[in-house]
């Protein structure tokens, strides 16, 4: 018996002594046990919360919004296997059943928004327990609130309902939440955006590229406009105009970011930041927007890179004949927004394709560029203000703001005067001013014109597929334009693993 006791004591001693030996923490990673404890930690955390925005605007948003509208389309290159995932979005033929779709871009947009939400939730639930400089804390909180509101605002515009996460997930059973209605989601979005405004500094006092009080006002105004809350929107928009932080740039061609210059300029309210170079923070959306197949010789004049490579596959986000026609005679924005390229490898007889020129700025290396992506520009503030005023019956003052945008583009003052005409004028102006800035589809849905506009567009396109970039003999698929919906169905890959949808 005694021996056994000694044995047990020895054994216990051995086990205890090796607890140290057996405790190995990762040397090349930090873990939650040691992070979120200093100002610097939260600063890094909020920086990381912006990161998914790069993926959103570079890879997904234009597929789900611009290419879904009548501004751009998928340009089929029949030398290649079809890439249905993009084609389905462009020609409104998404497979969908029971409110679920398998489209991978819908899935990725959804996931990227929730990535922002998870990162901001982590900040917002832990930051108050850590003591540090209040001003800095407010700034971080304000940014986190903005980003969370922005991500949910994307979700409510894409989906008819979505789960509402406000706390970080730490265990497996917290991962899935029931679907919340638009009403619940909007309540949170508005409250976050409202809370963010006073916490954030204005543009003059903020790092370039971070969100500002102006950006937060614009976000909230955008939300109010979507909800037809015109007066509240007007107040916020006037605050932006009166802030003196923003101006229209005289020449439209100078509005857009270059690969390293002209970023976050005086007209920019909020833009997603990219960096050219080896840091891995570059964009390549310009390449994604190129009609294909394009040879190095055809591409080089556009990108001016030293190592131009050919691009094969299918063309995406290629401007439609409709958007080209939407520009009025003499509109200087047409040549800034749209360029043309001849593709010798195309099977079409007409080998000339339009491409989005707004963002086509020279850079050094193929597929790596640093142009920022505009989310909100001052021109849109003015157009929103015009719209908010017009909807409240103040068409006269609305014309002032509309004309500021038109005159900058080399156009005469609007001829519209009635509220209805003014509404149409603003609607058209938004289309050309903000072409390829992912606004058109949301304009169509918030005004409930999407069904009429896309149905007409579909008919025009099907009647003349060669005009819409099909080679002779090829055309749209049978089921093109058969599933025109205001919202996307929820992603199937998520539906498979959540019990709630």
């Amino acid at each position, binding site marked *: 018996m005694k021996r056994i006791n000694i044995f047990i004591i020895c054994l216990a001693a051995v086990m205890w002594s090796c607890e140290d*030996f*057996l405790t190995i923490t990762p040397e090349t990673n930090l873990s939650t046990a040691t992070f979120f404890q200093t100002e610097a930690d939260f600063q890094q955390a909020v920086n990381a919360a912006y990161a998914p925005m790069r993926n959103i605007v570079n890879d997904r948003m234009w597929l789900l919004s611009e290419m879904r509208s009548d501004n751009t389309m998928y340009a089929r290159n029949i030398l290649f296997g079809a890439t249905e995932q993009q084609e389905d979005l462009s020609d409104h033929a998404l497979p969908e059943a029971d409110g679920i779709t398998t489209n991978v871009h819908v899935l990725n947009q959804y996931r990227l928004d929730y990535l922002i939400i998870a990162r901001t939730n982590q900040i917002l639930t832990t930051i108050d327990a850590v003591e540090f400089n209040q001003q800095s804390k407010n700034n971080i909180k304000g940014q986190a609130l903005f980003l969370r509101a922005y991500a949910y605002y994307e979700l409510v515009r894409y989906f008819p309902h979505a789960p509402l996460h406000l706390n970080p997930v730490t265990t497996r059973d917290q991962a899935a939440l029931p679907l919340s209605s638009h009403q619940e989601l909007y309540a949170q979005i508005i409250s976050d955006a409202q809370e963010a405004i006073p916490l954030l500094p204005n543009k003059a006092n903020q790092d370039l590229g971070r969100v500002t009080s102006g950006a937060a006002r614009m976000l909230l105004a955008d939300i109010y406009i979507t909800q037809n809350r015109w007066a509240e929107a007007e107040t916020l928009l006037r605050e932006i105009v009166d802030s003196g932080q923003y101006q229209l740039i005289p020449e439209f061609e100078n509005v857009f970011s270059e690969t390293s210059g002209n970023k976050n300029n005086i007209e920019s309210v909020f833009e997603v*930041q990219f960096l050219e170079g080896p840091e891995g923070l570059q964009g390549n959306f310009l390449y994604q927007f190129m009609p294909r197949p394009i040879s190095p010789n055809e591409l080089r004049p556009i990108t001016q890179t030293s190592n131009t490579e050919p691009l094969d596959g299918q063309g995406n986000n290629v401007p439609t004949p409709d958007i080209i026609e939407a520009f009025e005679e003499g509109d200087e924005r047409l040549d800034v927004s749209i360029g043309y390229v001849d593709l010798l490898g195309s099977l079409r007889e007409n080998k000339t394709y339009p491409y989005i020129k707004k963002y086509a700025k020279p850079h050094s290396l193929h597929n790596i560029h640093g142009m920022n992506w505009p989310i909100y520009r001052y021109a849109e503030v003015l157009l929103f203000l015009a719209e908010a005023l017009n909807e409240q019956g103040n068409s006269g003052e609305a014309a002032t703001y509309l004309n500021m945008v038109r005159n900058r583009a080399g156009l005469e003052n609007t001829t519209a005067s009635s509220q209805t005409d003014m509404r149409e004028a603003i609607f058209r102006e938004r289309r050309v001013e903000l072409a390829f800035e992912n606004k058109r589809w949301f304009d169509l849905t918030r005004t409930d014109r999407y069904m009429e506009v896309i149905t007409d567009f579909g008919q025009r396109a099907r009647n003349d597929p060669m005009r819409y970039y099909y080679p002779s003999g090829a055309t749209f698929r049978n089921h093109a334009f058969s599933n025109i919906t205001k919202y996307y169905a929820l992603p199937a890959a998520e539906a498979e693993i959540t019990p709630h949808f």
Partner: protein
Amino acid sequence: MNPNVYQFRPGRWLTFALVFVLVTHAAWAQTISGVVRSEGDMETIPGVSVLVKGSSRGTVTDLDGAFQIEADPGEVLSFSYIGYSTKEVTVQSGLTNYEVVMESSMSDLTEVVVVGYGSQLKREVTGSVQSVEGSDLMDLPVPQMTQKLQGRLAGVQINQTTGQPGRGMNVRIRGQFSIAGGSQPLYVVDGFPITGDIATINPDEIEDITVLKDAASTSLYGSRAANGVVLITTKRGKAGRTDVSLNYYTGVQRVPHYNRLEMMDAVEFATFKKEYFEAEGRAVPEMFQNPSAYEGQTQDWYDALLQSAPISNYNLSVTSSTDRMNTAVVATLFDQKGVVMNTDYQRYSIRLNTDYKVSDQVKLGFNIAPSYVFDNTPRTDGDRGVGILFNALHTWPNMPIYDEAGELTYYNRFPGETGNIFAYPNWLRSAQEITNETKITNLLSNAYVEYSPIKDLTFKSTINAELRGQQYFFFNPSTATNAINRPIPTVAMSIRETMDDFGWLNENLVTYRKSINDHNFEFLAGYTNQYFRRELTRVQADTYADDRLPTIQGAININRGGTRSDVQEWSLTSLLSRVNYNYQGKYLFTAAVRGDGSSRFGMENRWGIFPSVSAGWVVSDENILNTSEQVSFLKVRGSYGVTGNNNIGNYTQYALINNTVNHVFNNTVVPGAAVTSLANPFLGWETTNQFDIGLDLGLFDDRIQFVYDYFNKNTTNLLYNVQIPQESGFGSFNDNIGEIRFWGHEFAINTRNTDGKFKWTTNANISFNRNRVEALAEGIDRVYGLAHITQVGQPFGMFYGLIKEGFYMNEEDLANSPVVPGRSTVGSAKYRDVNGDGIITIGGDNDDRAIIGNPFPKFTYGIVNEFQYGKFDMSITGSGSYGNELYMRHLYSTANLDGVFNMVRKVNNRFRTPENPGDGIFGTTVGGGNVTGVERDWASSHFVFDASFFSIKNLTIGYNAGAWAKFIKSSRVFASIQNLYVFTNYWGGQNPETSMQSSGEGDGGNLSQGVDLFGYPVPRTFTIGANLNF
């Protein structure tokens, strides 16, 4: 029969004995001399004890195996030596010089096998183990031990997934695998569970290999034993003698022509293109208007990459054993060029094993084994765009390899209207100009001290250390690329990766034996600690000013995404114990347990206990069977035990922060940090419970030995990164989930078919392994792979896709069948509408996918025949697999009906019109990618083919030249053919054992196994060699 050479045959012996008793009555006492040799190699054996039966006269053979002894005619000389059957020779009148040949006691009662933490009499083993001697594998001209074992082990499936030298061996014991934890067994070299790659171990150093299969045999290796354990014992000197041996072989490897994947030649390709454009109603490009112009002009890009390649192995070993000192030195240089140009593989290795007996109580030992491997292999394997073999295979056969000046072209691209949408770099340049080399320095060493204060009580303490440095260097100059459609000059790029491993193991063991009457006990206890650390540095740089200077500083860009450093560490503390008990060597019982504490396990789940019990009954020792002449040995045995798999990653229990989620403000980089994984403090090892029942049977004096085993295993708590809804911000959660059941039957038979001058032995085995997924995670009933599904109630990793039923044969068929909206036409692939909704859908809620094939064989088998006739010997080794299927993934590109690439020849018999529907494999080309894409881009049974095979792995013929010079004890020359022939109906490539992932780095993992991407061919190797013993 040479009267001086005695073969031990009981029947004949009796006759001799009778005759001699009569004849030798009046004989004289005389001095008898002679030499003792061992059967087979006919080498002399020193130290054999020679006794005159029934007297006290005895002697021992000297270093040359010679003896002298006084004996009368009619007296019987008894020769005995460890490892050999005792031999008796009756002295004949007038004959004074004897050559005595002793047979190795392979089947004898005294045969000892190495088991975990010790050794055991084979007859007393209660688990399922199988051994192979290193000398049996010597002639096989392959560098990896596992290659040499193909076909030899029951229940062990060994596949060579690629022919890249030094790589690609996939070993699976008893069908075991897990989702994430791998399937490679634990390799234990001289007691040290190594962490490096078994492929770098020089097989010439190996004395014997023991494979532990059931839980009773493996449970002492605890949390690392679930995939089975392979014990490797390296060479030691043989008692009382010194041996010097020189072994050499050299030969040539070639890729045989039979069974190559047949691609279109230039005429067929041009004909295809012509017909394609005509069918589309488009103008035929000038290039294809006259296909017959290409007669004799075919450029076989794949064949152009191949070469005849030399292979040689030089091995010198010196073993020596005296009373107190036992030394073995083995030095080997292995040098292989590959059959794909610019492949080089060299291994330099030395092993020094020394044991020193300080006194009767104390023994010391040191082993040290440095080795160096140089390996340069072009990026041959992988998916289209990655692997140059796949790329070359379907490069247009009218694209020139050489230009008019006889120089290699840089790349080929024809005008767009030919349908040539990709630029094809010259793959010969890719192979020759891209550097892709790995250099591995490996040092395995150990030292031990053994102390026996009293008889049968031994303390043993060992220190083992493993150092391993691996340097990887990749350089892609501007003149070449392994990717399709990258123009030349391209951006030059380099990768440098340095990996430094350091590991140690300390083991402290005590063993105690005790026999009380007929009760025999053996007790083992041990305490061990093991630690491992790997440091990795990787630098990726690009945009070089000059291809001749691929230094880091020569690059304009350092690629951040490809540049990193990393540290991986783990530690393991274990307590282990085993008790063996037997009664009269007849009733056998073993119980063992290991407790493992590991740094990998969650804080709340740090220790795992792995017990096992086993029992055996030597039925043939019972009186009831002693009367049976036929049955020489019969043992039944059973075992049950628990083992684990701790290949769960080093830090999976932690919620990690990624500090490189950077962003940009003020047009400069700012650091960002995000939580990228969730913590699981309860995370643990995978657990396998295994039951085994077996039978060892020897018949006709062990001329036939038969082993049977049935096993049933349940693996639970599989480590899996369970997918969670990403609304959480996370993709997965590391958890222990699910259950897989494995069961199977194994049969092995060894027979001595003939004795005498012509000897013939056969070893054969066959194994039937099955598995079934019993459970996955809560709420998850399936996991998808590449074209695979792992689903509850089904075997793991089954091929999954649409069921192809043929083609829409005509308009009527099309109108009356379910279709793919917008894509189906007459002559396009017709799939089964599994869910009956009238529409063919892949994925999503209306999915029509089903299980379409099984990568697992119904059974695997192997057979080794050895023949000896006088001084000639021959052996032939075969291994096979039946019922396994492969997913011929490369068809998505090698049968692209848009004519983008060259195509397999079978496309000639495609569907053309309803009147000319072809042979039913490939559909119409009309309609372009929208139509043809349904056949090539959607996973379906179209890609699944039977890959059963029987492969003659090796044929060797040898000649024993004996001692033809004074200083030569024995010698042998041999010739061998490795991979003589593969019998198979599989047509997608020459290697039905293949399994690959898109990156070309190893096999596809267990979730996506059995994918053929046309990897490195396994060559046929012709060698000649010689063994000289001094």
